[in-house]
């Protein structure tokens, strides 16, 4: 034990200097999910351009598979400017990525973001951006 202790004086520390040095994450780390509005098949109410959408969309029901499968009930469909979009409540999310797996359109993707700690729980509710029809952020 004594020899082991002495040898530690000359070895690299086991700890890293977070937050100054960020850890290298594996490429498919399960961080905050990203929602791609273009890929999703939620219907925009009042939209007539539904030729590319599937049958459920034409009758005005979005698929909501993510809402149905979420074990933490962290996803809900909200209406923003007359458009029905999923809202991700990261305060309830358990980062299991079942929604990523379930989404038939691959509209939910991974991001490497893991620094979600906050003092305001409400800031973790990601309201869908009503203007984000074209850009995919």
């Amino acid at each position, binding site marked *: 034990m004594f020899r082991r202790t002495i040898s530690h004086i000359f070895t690299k520390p086991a700890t890293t200097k977070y937050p100054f040095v960020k850890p290298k994450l594996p490429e498919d780390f*399960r961080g905050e999910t990203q929602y791609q509005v273009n890929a999703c098949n939620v219907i925009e109410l009042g939209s007539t351009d539904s030729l590319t959408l599937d049958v459920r969309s034409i009758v005005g029901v979005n698929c909501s598979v993510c809402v149905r499968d979420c*074990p933490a009930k962290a996803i809900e469909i909200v209406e923003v400017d007359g458009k029905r979009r999923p809202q991700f409540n990261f305060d309830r999310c358990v980062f299991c990525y079942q929604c990523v797996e379930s989404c038939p359109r691959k509209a939910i993707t991974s991001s490497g973001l893991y620094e979600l700690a906050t003092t305001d729980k409400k800031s973790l509710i990601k309201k869908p951006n009503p203007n984000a029809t074209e850009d995919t952020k």
Partner: protein
Amino acid sequence: MSNSKIDIVSIVESKLKDKVQIQLGQLGNAAVNTSNGLHRDVVKVMLEADEKTAIVAITGLDLGANLGLLYHLRTSNAFITIRAEVPKDNPKIQTIVDLIPGAAFSELEVADLLGVVFEGNPSSGHFLLSEQWPEGIFPLRKDVKANEVKLNPPPPEGARTPEIGRQVKIIIGPQHPALLEPEKFAVTVDGEIVTKVEPRLGYVHRGIEKASESRTYLQDVYLVERICGICNACHAYGFVGTVEKILKTDVPPRAKYLRVVTLELNRLHSHLLTLGHAGLEIGYETLFQYFWRDREPIMDLIELTSGNRVYSSLMTVGGVRRDIRDTDIPRIKTTLEELRKKLPFYRQIYTNEASIKARMQNVGVLSRSDAIKLGMVGPVARASGYDIDVRKDEPYEAYGEIPFKEIVYTEGDTWARMNVRMDEVEESINIIDYALDHLPTGPFRIDAPRNVPIGEAVCRLEAPRGELFYYIKSNGTANPDRVKVRTPTFANLPSFLKTAIGESIADVPPNFVSLDPCFSCTDR
């Protein structure tokens, strides 16, 4: 006697031929249907035929007009379930505690959650439920809506009656520096010597068994995974393994190997955690720091293979959710090799270091016969010479194809229990190495139906702390009808209650930590 093959099913059949019905292949090797208190006779016949007969769990079911009871018993080579029923308006049944003392906790749990009265094992107050839970409402009955129950007001902070005489009661928990999780143990001491230990469980009872009845099978995998943070992959496997048995799905070979890798990584980090934590409990903090430092690379491997360092969320019905990348395999192997090189140093500390020997040897000695009687599982049982390991006894997934040693010590003390884990760390590294070398090609998951047909099944697996047991009853809808979990700590707690008596109060922490207790598991 224990080594020769005992055909327990035919023994029960010949001795109780006209009294019981036997269904082969159901709920383990066979399900025995009994009525009118004959369950005791079946237990007696089994105990006579096989000295290793031990209780695994008692599942309570709400069957409408009746309450069902499933006594799950393990013998040296079989798994038997005894069915019994009691009417709901007069739910009385005779206890089996006089035959198998290890059934005491299981009976108290069923009494608290389903209201079955076990004659001969009286319950005093709540066992798992809160003190504020109203009397006469049993949450696992189908007519009870858990979120509509009105709790009683909290009991007033009355003056505690002091103990008179030489006997002093020391309350450990629910908030105590030595316990990381909340649970209460009232330890009565006479001078320095412990004379009585009274547990009060249920401080982290979240009602997960009830909650899983209102979620889909897919959501339940993630819910049961959160019963315990440390052995999360084991809980997820226990659930999907049981569902796959009802579905009669066979997962692809590659998935079986990937599951073994996940489960063994789980065991590795759990054992390193508890080996270090034991150092903390006896005041050997350097050891704690060393072990936890070396556990960190294992956490990184879990993150690498699953995407998250604690909750792997890899198990799913039909296989695993993500494949292992070929480019990651060398990194896994080098990390494990580095850990293997450090093991001789740790083993030498655990076997020879004077402070470890002084604090752990001959502390909490549990004999082999007591280990069987009380139904011990996992490293606690194996340290007492009771050689049970589900990976060997009833190989699941790829364990039947992977060579590994079953670690058994005969000392039965705290020191032996920690050394079983120490040796198992190396075996786990060997298992992962072998599994990665022999990883079959092909798909890693198959599509499984979301709705499960009517049926019931049991599944056992060797979690880091011991045998973990799952029972699921399906009613053909998207949600399960009943999910029963018997966790290893729940089975192992009676060991502490027995061995602490007669020893010094200073030996309580090392004795207790040698069970690797997990109360989140225990209470569910």
